[in-house]
């Protein structure tokens, strides 16, 4: 039997792509951060859609883990950005190139 790709999965892929492109194009660190959240949620949507269509509950469990981690990561990430802004008065991603040195 041929497997039909659910429409929700297509939406998830599109959101993921938007997030990925946003990460690479936007300069503002906060926006990049929001794009990462977008990709997280795209992945979550994929998990739930597949859990539903394949009838497997594990996908929902993974979704719960991911959303928890994303919440924690959002808190840590925002705290970091605030400290960086305190230090240099801007949070443009291009200027944050300390890794090079």
């Amino acid at each position, binding site marked *: 039997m041929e497997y039909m790709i659910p429409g929700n999965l297509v939406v998830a892929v599109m959101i993921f792509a938007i997030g*990925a492109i946003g*990460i*690479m194009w936007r300069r503002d660190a906060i926006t*990049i951060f929001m794009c990462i959240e977008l990709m997280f949620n795209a992945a979550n949507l994929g998990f739930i859609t597949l859990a539903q269509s394949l009838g497997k509950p594990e996908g929902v469990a993974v979704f719960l883990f991911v959303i928890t981690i994303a919440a924690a990561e959002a808190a840590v990430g925002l705290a970091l950005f605030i400290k960086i802004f305190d230090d240099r008065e801007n949070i443009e*991603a*291009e200027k*944050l*190139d*300390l*890794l*090079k*040195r």
Partner: protein
Amino acid sequence: MNGFLIVLIPALPLAAFLINGLFGRWLGRLGGWIAVACMGGSAAISIPLFIRAMWGGFTPFNVTLWRWMSNGAIDITIGFRVDQLTCLMLLYVTCVSFMVFLYSMGYMAGDPGFNRFFSFLGLFDFSMLVLVLGDSLPVVFIGWEGVGLCSYLLIGYYMDLPGAPDAGKKAFIVNRIGDFGFLVGMMMLFAALGTLDIQKIILAAEQGAAGVGPLAYGGAFVTVVTLALFLGCTGKSAQIPLFTWLPDAMAGPTPVSALIHAATMVTAGVYLVVRMSGLFVLAPATMTVIAGVAAATAFVAGSIALTQQDIKKVLAYSTVSQLGFMFLACGVGAFGAGIFHVFTHSFFKACLFLGAGSVIHAAHAQDLDHLGGLRKYMPVTAWTFCIACASIAGLPLLAGFVSKDEILWSVFASGAPGSMLLWIIAVITALMTAVYSFRAYFMTFEGTGRLSHDKQHHAHESPWTMTVPLVLLAFGAIVAGALNLPGVFGEGTWRGVNNLLEPVLEPARKVAEAHAHEMHSPSLELALMALSGVIAIAGVALAYRYTLAKWPEGARRLAKRFRLLYKISLYRWWWDDFYMKYVAGGTWGLAKLATWFDRWVIDGIMHGIAGAASLGSRFIRALQNGQAQAYVLIFLLGANIVIGLIIWFK
């Protein structure tokens, strides 16, 4: 005589080396005395050993110390062989070395490297004694290399003088060529016989004499082996073509020259030939080569010694010439005569060198043109030098006369190919020996003093540490001949050394009796003996005429009349120039080629690799710009490629 005492003979000089080398800084002059005592101990063991070998009951024995290496086919033990030949060698090596050590106490007094000098002397004697005692070729080779190393260290002892380090290097490199021959001969013997034990080799040689085994009489193999070993001997014993290092070796302190020229080092080659005589006689071609090379060496070196200006150079070339005599005797099969000349030569040559050292010590000059008339300032040195000169010149009844006449007679009577020619060359060389040795004596001690005024003022007799060895050695130079009077006086007690060495030389004698036709004629032998006496006296008279009676006009006129001969002699037959230009020049060219190869090919490869790495890293570095977004891009691209590949190959 037990093994422990035998081990002590080389161990005492080794102890002298270690004590002076490790603690010399704190011992100072005491270290020198310890070395003298050690050497005296060795001599004290060797003298009774020799007396027992000569007159008492003595059976040869082996002392095995430990197994050095054992690896299937190779089984080498460190062990000593004490037989009659060893006893004779031990006697003069330890005695003459003891004299030299004692002399050095006076000669080297106050030298900044006093203890370094004595430690090297100890190592030198240790090596020589191992060489003499070794029961297998590898053990002999240890000593062989050891004396080479020590000669390098001691010739280059005055390392801040211009010529000394170079002379040391020359000695080492030239000896290396000879050592190569020794090694080749040794390995060939091992390949054929599976053993390097000297006794076993001689045993195999005895079978070879009967035509059994790989060492068949006159075979190509045995000829090549003996030629290779002889190449080793030409290096160590300064024969053509490798003799040029020895005259340069006088750059070292004079006691070292005495040690190298008399007791240690140069006699090693003759010793090896005599030790392996059973093998050498199996190759008549090699024997002819040895005799020819030896006669040529004796003649060339003797002719050079005639015109040298430096007293030590005269003595150095005289040594080369005398070594030629020893090898000449070996080459015609008279091994006993050869080793006996080694024995007597060690006394008068050591005496001559130590006398020259005494002169240099007193007058601070060594150019014969600037010496002269020193007898009234240093009578002991003069008299001992005169006795030693008379001995080497072969004035009748002295030690040198007895041993040299034995060689001349052996050559004459041997019936070896070309023996008449060899004999004539040897007689001419004997004449030259008398001339150059007395030229050195007359120009140093007799006639008018040519020293500059202040140097003459300082000229004085040397301290007792230097004169006592001179007197003892001069005594040896007079009486040593009594140990082996010519065969014409009967074969009894007075044929001491020949009888002593009989067991060692027996294999060689058997072969020689089977193949050669020796001449026996007591009346002819007496006549030739008288002839060599006359020749020696004529040589002294010639030397007197041109260095005292008609000095300097007569000598100058002589040089002008025989201008070509004079130049050949003065410029040492251009041997050194030849080697410098063609042999050393070739090496130089090779070295240049190697430099070029190193610079452009080896370095090129290395720089190429480094350059490629540097270039590649510059490219990779561009990716790592610290921009998080760029990393994400690369990460995404990489992930896509990996996923794409997984799908593609599924």
